[in-house]
């Protein structure tokens, strides 16, 4: 009896790590499905707002909601400031974060006109380190189809978009290098960057 129990314990002990190893790919699959579902849902919402009725003001409000729900705006903002995030004061960080949010919404809403009639097709989803990469093809009238990859962080637990890669060009990396160059030509003064961003937001109305 005792021996049999021992046998059971030993087998279960052996099986445990094996089963964990077996579950892993399934987990990854679930995470990929979640990431893919997020992009499908966000994409459908964006398309319906862009192609739907309503004035620009109304559309802007709805786009802001969609961005807030699907995008890790704070994470993207920190990434775009790069090494300067560490040297910024708490007050600068707060003002920068607030402006970044508005700049992001402005940049997206200013393109509504260009994207009228937009459609997208879902492609495959792959894992890249901790993130999921969801491929899509975006088609808009009078333009060649564009390959757009959406990078989704922590796809298993709390999937959020952290980057959009169009034809191999990363939106957040481009933004980061834009800010880095601006800062290096303004004595690395974060207040200068904040002022320039404020100006941008004011001009966009």
């Amino acid at each position, binding site marked *: 009896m005792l021996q049999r129990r021992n046998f059971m314990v030993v087998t279960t002990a052996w099986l445990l790590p094996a089963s964990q190893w077996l579950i892993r790919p399934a987990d990854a699959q679930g995470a990929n499905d979640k990431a893919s579902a997020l992009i499908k849902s966000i994409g459908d919402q964006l398309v319906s707002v862009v192609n739907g009725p309503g004035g620009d003001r109304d559309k802007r409000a709805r786009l802001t909601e969609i961005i807030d729900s699907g995008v890790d705006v704070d994470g993207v903002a920190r990434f775009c400031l790069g090494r300067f995030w560490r040297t910024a004061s708490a007050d600068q960080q707060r003002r920068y974060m607030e402006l970044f949010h508005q700049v992001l919404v402005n940049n997206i809403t200013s393109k509504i006109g260009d994207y009228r009639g937009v459609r997208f097709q879902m492609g495959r989803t792959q894992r890249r380190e901790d993130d999921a990469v969801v491929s899509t093809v975006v088609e808009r009238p009078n333009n060649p189809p564009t390959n757009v990859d959406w990078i989704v962080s922590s796809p298993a637990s709390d999937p959020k978009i952290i980057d959009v890669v169009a034809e191999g060009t990363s939106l957040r990396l481009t933004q980061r290098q834009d800010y880095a*160059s601006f800062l290096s030509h303004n004595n690395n003064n974060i207040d200068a960057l904040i002022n320039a961003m404020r100006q941008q937001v004011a001009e966009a109305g």
Partner: protein
Amino acid sequence: MPATPSRLLVITAVLLGGLGGCATPPPASDPDAVADYKETNDPLEPTNRAIYAFNNALDTAILKPVAQGYRYVVPASVRGGIHNSLANLGSPVQFSNDVLEGKPRRAGDTTMRFLINTTAGVLGFFDVASDWGYPNHDSDFGMTMALWGIPAGPYLFLPVFGPSDPRDGIGLGVNAVMDPFTWVGQGAAVRALDWSRWVMNGIDQRERHLDDIDNIKKTALDPYATFRSLYRQHRTSQIDDARNDNRATIPVWFPQSATPGQVTYSPTASRN
């Protein structure tokens, strides 16, 4: 020797080698700034920015209005056809580079595209080949050198041609030399055709990027740096697409594939 666009290009590339004007590297006491400087890899930044300003003025005065006029006058379907025809004329250069890159399947795609589009596609006006399973891909001598392991070098902003680097600058020149149209025929008519093809190419490319460039200039705090970043990322992605395209050369109709599962086609190849 009469001036043709491609010959001028070779001369420009040589002359540019002599231009100076360097950025001051940051002091070694600021390691973060030094790291940024190295990552940016743009030691000629002041010269580059001057050429960028020059190109911008040229663009505002000539190229952009022409491209806008082209978009206004010519319907989208015809513009698409003209773009396809121009791309079809580029097939010989594309094919040579596919071969030099050691990408037989890409060379095959280019050959099939050229044969199908020149005939069924009415001298390249319709891109029938894409629908028949021969999608387009990018291939030029800059990419070829990248696949040979030659580094890009520092950023260069070329007059008229815009964002580049030494590798791509040389690539432009070699592409022109490779182009049979550079060497075929003589006389005023041939020269006129050669020029109009280059001019048309410029207008076509500019028209296709009208909205993108406007958007970047509107939203970037430093458009020069943004274009630099975009150019490099785009080139890297084109080169990676070529590098990762390792489809087997066994035809799909061959009864027993010797290496099953090796047929990998990357759908991320960019379509231009």
